[in-house]
Structures are given as C-alpha cells and as structure tokens.
C-alpha cells in the first residue's frame, strides 16, 4: 500500500541530511514509481534503484552536465575515427595504429549518414582522427561533407600531402576546417624517438605546406614521462611559428593502446567525448580500442547514445560527490 511506503519515505528522508543518501526498502516496480514521483514532488532525488531498496538523495542534485562549460558537455563535439591505419607506428599510440593495423575505414556514404545524425543530435563541432585520416586518398570528400555541416578539425601527422593528396588538399575549402598537426618536441630527438626516425622533419614540412596553402592549423604535442623540459622548449618554438594560444595543444600520454605508461583513464574518471568508429561508439577517442570504454556497437541513433553517455556521466559524478561527502574527516 503506497500509504505505508510514503510514510516510510517521509520518515527515512526526513531523518537524512541534505547532500547525503538513504536506502529505503521497496517491493516491485509500482513502489519504485511511487518513490520516484514522491521524491520529485518533495524536492529530493532517486539516485539509484537497487534490486530491493531505492537510494534517495536528500535535496535536488544539480545536473553535473550543467556544471561543465558548454564545449566540454558530452555531445558538443563528435569524434570520428575515419580509419585506423597509419603511416607511422608511434610507441604511445592510444589505438595501436600502424601501417598494418586493421583499417576499419568509415566509407563516404556511412560518413555522410553519421554527419546527418550528428546534426540531428545538435553536435556543434566535428573532430576527425585515426589512424592517419589522410591515408584515405578520398578523405577530401568526407571533409567537404563535414565542413559544410559543422566546424571541423582533422588530427593529422601532416606527412601525406604529396602528389594527388596535395592536389586534393589544395582544392578543399578553407572555411570551417582546421588541421591539428602532431609535433611532440622542438627538435627531432624526442619526436623521432616515439614517432619514428625522420618524422620530425616531415611534420615540420607538413606544417609549412598547410600554412602556405592558407589552412588554419593547430599544433599538438603528446608528452610522456621522458618529456623533461620539452614543454618549455615547445612553447618557445610555437612562439617562433607565431601560433596563437588557441593553436597550441600540449597533453599527456594516456595509458591506452600501445602506451604502457601514462595517465590511467576509465569511464568513471574521464569526461566523455563522444567518439564514433567503424566498430561503434566509444566513451572517449583516447580509448577507442578499450572494450570497457565501448558504449554501443552501432552509431545510430546517435542522439540516443549521446543521452545514454550523458546519463552515465551524471551517475558517475553524482556517485563520486556522494562518496566524497560520506567520508568526512573525523
């Protein structure tokens, strides 16, 4: 009888301090519904439905997604792995790309369909990555679709712009398109150590090509534990290239893929960046081959998947906040 349940709810939540939770035993889905509507009407929050009890948080929980700046909210950006193969085989590559990696190419028709879903899901920006996207000779066709829809950034090692690829590159629109070029150090040593001999010189050359052709570029470094003073040297180097602050990205290696050291990441610890590959949708592009980070096998319907990811993020954040508040210093 829901009178008894409601009295139990009033008693249990009434004795609970705001910001903490209480378990109320329940019996069946009807009681779950009653508890949820009671909590909503009285300014409280059902945090989680366990097999028997329901966990109620005293007070309303501010949406953790609202606490994020708009551009960090899951679904603001959509990451797309156009392919996984690469001309390089960097030792820290988070998705173990190499010339022999399984290619997992998203063909143009499917790519266009994904962009359609992204628009329907109110995605604001597109990030294309791989592998090396420019390994696909017809990448330009995808870029035309993407840039017509949303501002698009392509992560690239900038080493493929020769011959036909260079011609196709030059024919691309400049609007809505940014190339984020990988460069790990100001001199060849560290860069080549992780990314292969001669790759530094080619990256510098690629930066020159993109700049000369009038493309907007951003230069991105991935630093491991051996970075030493690289960060400071890179900043000076970026100054020499006259890069604005928003054209510089310096980040740390994640412990994913080929990297055996670096920052540990998990769904509970990482703000999601929705990421589509030929194999499905992933929590974050930095972990697009880690089975624990895969959200669903199919990218459609994308809006539903983005909602799922947002809900899971909320659950993680709220659980962490409640946990933090339930271990006060004695």
């Amino acid at each position: 009888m829901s009178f008894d349940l409601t009295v139990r709810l009033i008693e249990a939540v009434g004795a609970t301090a705001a910001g903490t939770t209480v378990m109320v035993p329940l019996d069946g889905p009807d009681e779950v519904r009653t508890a949820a509507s009671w909590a909503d009407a009285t300014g409280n929050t059902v945090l989680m439905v366990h097999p028997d009890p329901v966990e109620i948080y005293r007070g309303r929980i501010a949406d953790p997604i609202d606490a994020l700046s708009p551009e960090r909210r899951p679904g603001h950006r959509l990451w797309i792995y156009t392919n996984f193969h690469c001309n390089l085989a960097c030792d820290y590559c988070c998705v173990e790309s190499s010339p022999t990696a399984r290619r997992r190419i998203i063909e143009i028709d499917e790519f266009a369909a994904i962009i359609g879903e992204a628009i329907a899901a109110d995605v604001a920006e597109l990030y294309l990555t791989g592998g090396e996207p420019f390994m696909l000779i017809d990448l330009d066709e995808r870029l035309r679709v993407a840039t017509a829809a949303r501002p698009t950034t392509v992560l690239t090692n900038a080493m493929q712009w020769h011959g036909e690829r260079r011609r196709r590159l030059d024919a691309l629109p400049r609007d809505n398109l940014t190339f984020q070029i990988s460069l790990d150090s100001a001199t060849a040593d560290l860069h080549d150590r992780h990314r292969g001999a001669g790759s530094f010189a080619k990256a510098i050359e690629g930066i020159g090509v993109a700049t000369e052709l009038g493309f907007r570029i951003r230069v991105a470094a991935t630093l491991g534990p051996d970075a030493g003073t690289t960060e400071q040297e890179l900043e000076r180097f970026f100054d020499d290239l006259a890069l604005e602050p928003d054209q510089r990205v310096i980040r740390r290696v994640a412990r994913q893929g080929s990297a055996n050291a670096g920052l540990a990441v998990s769904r509970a610890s990482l703000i999601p960046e929705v990421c589509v590959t030929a194999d499905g949708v992933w929590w974050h592009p930095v972990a697009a081959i880690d089975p624990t980070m895969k959200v669903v096998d199919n990218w459609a319907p994308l809006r539903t998947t983005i909602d799922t990811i947002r809900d899971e993020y909320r659950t993680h954040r709220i659980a962490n906040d409640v946990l933090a508040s339930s271990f006060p210093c004695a």
Partner: protein
Amino acid sequence: MADRQEVLVGAVAYSANVVPIWEGIRDYFAESSAPMDFVLFSNYERQVEALLAGHIDIAWNTNVAWIRTLRRTGGTAIALATRDTDLVFTTVMVGRAGSGLDGIESLRGKQVALGSRDSGQARILPLHFLHRAGITEADMDLVIFDSDVGKHGDTGRSDLDALRAVVDGDADVAAIGVNTWNSLRAGGDGAVADLAVVWESEPYSHCNFSVLETLPSERTRPWVEHLLAMDWEIPEHRRILELEGLTEWKLPDLEGYRSLTAAMDEQNISDHW
C-alpha cells in the same frame, strides 16, 4: 556579546538536515553586509532561554516559541521575517475515506488523534478549533502521541503516528500539519487513497525569526534585507529555499498568531516550560 560582529542565529536541530540548511544560509550571508553564524539547540525551550539571555541575536522560532518569547518579554519581542509557507499554515483533520465524517462538528463523540503537546498544528490549535466548535475533551476520545516533545511538531513524527492510528483503525481522525499532509500527497493518489480530509482550519502563522527589541535595528535591517533578497530563480538560493520549505521569505503577519494566542490562554499553556 555586544562586540560580536556576526549575527548569531539560533535554530532547533529537529533532524540531521538542519545542519546543511543552516550552513547553506550562513554561506549565503557570508558575502553580505550582515554575515551570520548559527547555533543549534536540542529543543525550543533552550533556544528561547538563550535568546532572552542574549546568547543569540535571532531565534528561528516556531509559533509556540514565538508566543512564549513575546510573553516573556512583556510583548516587546519583534518578529523579523517568515517563510511564505508560514503565512498560510493550516491544520488538517484527516479521516478514513468513506467514513462519512465531514466538517469539524462531525467529530463529536469520535476518536481524535493528536500530536505532541507542544505542537501548535497537531495539538494546541486543533484542540482550540474543536473547543470553538463546541466540542470539549469530554465530547471525544483523544488519542495522544507525544512523540517529539521539545521540537514543537517540527519532526512531523507525531503527525505520522496520528495518521497511522487512523489507518490502523485506532482513531477516526488525525489532526496534522498541512506540511505533513502535502508530503504524503506527494506519494501520489495511492498514498492517500484510503484517507480523506474531514476539515481544514483557516490559515495561521507559523515560524518566524524573533529578536529582542534591544537588538539595534542597524544589525537587523541589513540581515533582513539580505534574507528577503533570496531568489527562487537563482539555483543556489533555490536549493536552500526548497530544503527549508519555502519559495520566498516574507515579513511576518502578526494577526496570524491570534488563534494560537487564544489557544494557549484557554489551555493554560505556560509561558515557561
């Protein structure tokens, strides 16, 4: 205590939730020209004594604690502010659905469940309203639940006990605060399907922030102004307002204490404890 800079507000710790509520209110005042701190008491008696002794500047009083404060100060105490919900508080008489009871007169000869003896809404006022309708203790069977004495009914415990008596068939009607009734109704139609409102009182005033007249208005004015500036539309404010059960702080309506004043006179309820 004259040199104390912060305004010191007393409140009664009727549940664990009182701590985060008052921490929230204190934080809200921290950036104002009237910063405050708070002290929690285990019952309203202690709190009123502390106010009279000057140990606190402001007491967040129930209606019963307010009348006692007023009387102990010869009518000079001042009520500063109140919740919007305190201006329209009512007592609700709840019986079983289909009992045929309708209106306060129908309670003659019935079993009436009442809450704690110091609860305005669940005991003192319902008795007064019954007397006013010509029904004395001799005309009914009282089923008494003194379950949260000292808290003046704040915990809602005695309301729930009285309701339980109705559901279990041990009483015909329970006199409870409208806040408890609303909380029960929030459980959906099923939660109150077996119950029916037999009678609801006219609105009366409930809690207020009480001060002695000796507290200079330079100290109270900015504090009250900042209190009244709390805004439901601002999420951080709304969190506190919702926990404390209001949408807006208001100036008090002293007329709303008339029925309780009459009730306490008629029932010879002591100004002390």
